[in-house]
């Protein structure tokens, strides 16, 4: 199908774009890479009367680290730019982000699709949404009244629903600290599809490696948004020596702690089976770094 007619506006700067969004109200939508929005418009699942194209705002693309070791990723940075970022822009502390990109669609999707677009779109199994929740990212939104920072834990409200107001533009996501022992893995029916279940962990082994001092476990595809699994995190921290046995026990705890849906991509039982495999695999991969 072909999209419904709309008026096209090319933004020159963030302030102008948010002003215009406020003026146009419900009728307007931001377009970044278009990898989700254009598909929806082609099928007339979305028919905005106005598109505000922020794709030309070069200042919103790129990676930079701050003095506190945090990583700032501009909203317009493409998945492919992260995938191919040089080591000095994305060191071992954030290798998890680079490695996760191979799971996002395919190369020609990743060359256009943006980090900010992914987060704003809020798909329950999107890799960026899972990474943001796992690593306590902060999302920086620009609206008519200026900027505000939203914690990832408060950003995702449900299926394709986020804390962003219609006249706000996501300008940046901040990953506050390095995560050298983190990994994301998933299962999708075909390579490049959205995941049926995705699992990500961020582990902090004690000096000497005898146990974990802290651990974070997050899952995608089990709820309307990515979720942390505190029961599995406790299992890792209180479970003793790192190794396959601990990871398998943790994965079993994770599978029992969530209430995944049954749908066309798989039953709740099938998703639990995937969780048992994927959480253990993510732990192995995180510790192999």
């Amino acid at each position, binding site marked *: 199908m072909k999209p419904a007619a709309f008026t096209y506006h090319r933004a020159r700067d963030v302030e102008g774009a948010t002003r215009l969004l406020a003026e146009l109200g419900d009728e307007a939508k931001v377009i970044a890479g278009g990898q989700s929005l254009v598909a929806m418009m082609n*099928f007339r699942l979305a028919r905005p009367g106005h598109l505000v194209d922020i794709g030309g705002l070069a200042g919103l693309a790129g990676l930079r680290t701050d003095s506190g070791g945090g990583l700032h990723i501009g909203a317009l940075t493409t998945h492919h730019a992260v995938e191919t970022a040089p080591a000095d822009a994305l060191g071992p502390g954030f290798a998890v982000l680079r490695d996760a990109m191979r799971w996002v669609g395919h190369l020609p999707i990743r060359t256009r699709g943006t980090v900010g677009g992914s987060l704003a779109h809020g798909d329950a199994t999107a890799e960026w949404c899972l990474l943001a929740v796992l690593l306590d990212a902060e999302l920086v939104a620009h609206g008519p009244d200026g900027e505000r920072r939203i914690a990832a834990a408060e950003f995702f409200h449900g299926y394709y629903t986020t804390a962003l107001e219609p006249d706000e533009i996501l300008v940046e996501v901040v990953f506050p600290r390095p995560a050298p022992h983190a990994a994301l893995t998933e299962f999708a029916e075909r390579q490049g599809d959205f995941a049926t279940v995705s699992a990500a962990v961020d582990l902090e082994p004690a000096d000497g490696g005898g146990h974990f001092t802290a651990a974070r476990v997050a899952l995608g595809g089990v709820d309307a948004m990515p979720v942390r699994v505190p029961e599995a995190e406790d299992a890792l921290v209180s479970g003793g020596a790192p190794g396959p046995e601990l990871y398998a026990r943790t994965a079993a705890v994770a599978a029992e702690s969530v209430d995944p849906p049954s749908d066309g991509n798989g039953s709740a039982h099938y998703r639990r089976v995937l969780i048992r495999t994927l959480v253990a695999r993510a732990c192995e991969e995180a510790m192999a770094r």
Partner: protein
Amino acid sequence: MTDNAPEHTAQQRQLLSLDVNGETHELLTEPRRTLVDVLRHDLRLTGTHVGCEHGICGACTVLLDGAPVRACLMFAAQAEGKEIRTVESLADGTRLNDLQQAFSEHHGLQCGFCTPGFLMLAEGFLAERPEASKEEIREVVASNLCRCTGYQTIVEAIDDCAARRRAALRSRLEGTAHHNGDSRDSEDENTSETVPPGAACEEVPCGSTTRSR
């Protein structure tokens, strides 16, 4: 264009300037025209195909500033100021480029519907990753759909073309007159030293057959 101000109403058309295969085209279109529709309907460049219109099949893949993209998932207006390359840019008249020849030699196509998309996908990918392993090629080939070939021959065609380009580059760097270690393409032997690096195989096809379709 005034700053962020509405430029036209939905019914109106907008003036666009697109750089396609090295030529600038001025055209008047509705904003809702996707890049693939402008290429096919306005510019009559029907080599780029269109299948699913939601990013799955890859038949519409073109290069945007050198990178493979889905032409069905962007509005033409978003491509202003960028260099667009379509499958029409590959052959020199009736002389296929080396990648096209490799597809032909390896039977990397049957009905041909998917072929323009695979060619542009591979051109973009190999330009960025000339050293790509067969496994990497296999993963990238998974971006697009082909109902006929079973993909194996497409992977082999791209892998073979990449190997020949690497061999040609090596032999040029070594300053020998033979590219590719064989001299089937003898008419080009004398020119290979004058070809600038990176442009090698486009100007000096390594394959033996020159087939026109």
